[in-house]
Structure formats: structure tokens, C-alpha cells
């Protein structure tokens, strides 16, 4: 799994500290738990986390898990996760890519926000459109995938 952005990026010293749970650039509190937890989750499943970042260009977080590891947490409701991210931060141009056994579902938010021209993503009919589009896209990728217990888009 990887998360890539073209944001402000981090210098080397910040990248080195970002896996410390008592480091954060936020001012509301003194802990930053997301990346340390992700790293711990990956390493507890024979995996790893790598961060590459360039100031002014962006950051890539890449994380690997041993799929069959008994401690690997399930992906859960992936379509719901994509939808929540999109709804809660519509100012970001999201590009979701979900690939299973070579079959890919891609959802880009920019064409959507451009077509809407300022209409909120949380208008009920728009919300239904987005939810159904993402749910059917994720389900379609899983249609031909090898059967595995947690490959149910509605699980969790």
C-alpha cells in the first residue's frame, strides 16, 4: 500500500523523526501516532514502512505486510474509507488506485469536482452517486480475484 502526495514534503531530519510517536508538526497536542502505528502494524507482520520525501515536491509512504500473517489487520470497508476521505477533504485531488491480481479500479476526484462546479459533494444525490460509483468499482475488482476470506468489500 502506498500513499503519495505532491505537498510540501519533509527534510531528512523530519523524515527521521516522523516515526517517533512524540513528534508532530501540529500544535494542538504533542503526539503524532498515525505513522508510528502504521510502521508497527507492518513490522509485526514481517513487513516494513519506507518514507521518501523531498521538500517542495512531496512525500511517498510505502508499506508492506505479509498478506498471510495472522496479525495482519483486515482492510475493512475500503470503499467507505475512500468515500470518507473524498467527502471530508474535497479540496484535495484524490486519485484512488485499487489493484488486485492485476485488475485495477481507479477513481479520480478532479473530473468530479470540475463537473460539479462548486456544488457540495454531500448533496444527497451526489453522495449516492459517489458511494455507488466507488462501491461498484471496488466490488468489480474483487469479482475475479482469488477467493480470500477478507476480500469482501462490505466486511468490517
Amino acid at each position, binding site marked *: 500500500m502506498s500513499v503519495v502526495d505532491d505537498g510540501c514534503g519533509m527534510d531528512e531530519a523530519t523524515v527521521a523523526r516522523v516515526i517517533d510517536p512524540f513528534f508532530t508538526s*501540529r500544535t*494542538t*497536542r504533542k503526539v503524532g*501516532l*498515525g505513522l508510528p*502505528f502504521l510502521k508497527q502494524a507492518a513490522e509485526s507482520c514481517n513487513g516494513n514502512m519506507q518514507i521518501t520525501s523531498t521538500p517542495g515536491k512531496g512525500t511517498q509512504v510505502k508499506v508492506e505486510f505479509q498478506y498471510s500473517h495472522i496479525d495482519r489487520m483486515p482492510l475493512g*470497508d475500503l470503499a*467507505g*474509507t475512500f*468515500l*470518507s476521505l473524498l*467527502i*471530508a*477533504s474535497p479540496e484535495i485531488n484524490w486519485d484512488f488506485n485499487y489493484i488486485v491480481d492485476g485488475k*485495477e*479500479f*481507479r*477513481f*479520480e476526484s478532479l*473530473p*468530479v469536482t470540475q*463537473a*460539479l*462546479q462548486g*456544488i*457540495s459533494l*454531500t*448533496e*444527497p*444525490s*451526489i*453522495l*449516492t*452517486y459517489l*458511494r*455507488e*460509483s466507488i462501491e*461498484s*468499482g471496488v466490488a*468489480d475488482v474483487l469479482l475475479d480475484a482469488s477467493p480470500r476470506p477478507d476480500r469482501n468489500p462490505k466486511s468490517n
Partner: protein
Amino acid sequence: MASVKSLEDLKRLREDALEKRKVKSASGQAQVIVAMGTCGIAAGARDAMKAILDTIESESLTGIVVSQTGCIGLCEREPIVQVVIGDQPKVTYGKVTPEVARRIMNEHVVKGNVVQDHVIPV
């Protein structure tokens, strides 16, 4: 975009939404903010968010903007949801289970009655 629906469908939905906006009274837009920091997510913020979005869809609630924020420093009160209606002061709710989220939507966002038993004084 791989989808069973097209952007043309979306443009048509946009026109419908614009029409509904015209007939809607100027009661002020509602903003619902879900705290989605690691502490919030661990406490169930995703379930609260899902309940809020489900309510918007099932009740056809228009004029509501849903957004997120990070940890606001009240981790022990998570999941936290904040509601701002028009020019009114922000109301902060704690321990927002999906059931409480539905109450907040139906009682506060729709009817304007603050759900007092979950308000955090800030």
C-alpha cells in the same frame, strides 16, 4: 474513471441540486466536522462519519457540508463531532457513537435542537 456511472449523470445531478438550492429557504448552511485523528479513528470516528453520510442520503438532507479535522486535544472524549449552523456558535459533541451521530443530525442539524447530553463545554 472506471465507473458504472458517467460524468453526464453527475452533471444532471448537479442541475437538480441547483434547482433544490433555489427553493431552499435561507436558513443558513450547516457544517458538520468529524475529528479524524488517530485517536478519533481508534475510538470509532469512521463509524460516526458513516452514520452522518448515511443519514444525509436516507433523509435527503440538503445544504450540509461534512468535513474533517485532526486531533483537537480531547482524545478521551473521542469520537468528537462539531456542528456549526449559519452564524451560530460551534457546538462540540463527545462520545459520538453512530446512534448519537444520527441524533445530532436529526435533532440539531435538521431541527436546530442541541443534543445536550453529549455536548462538551469548550
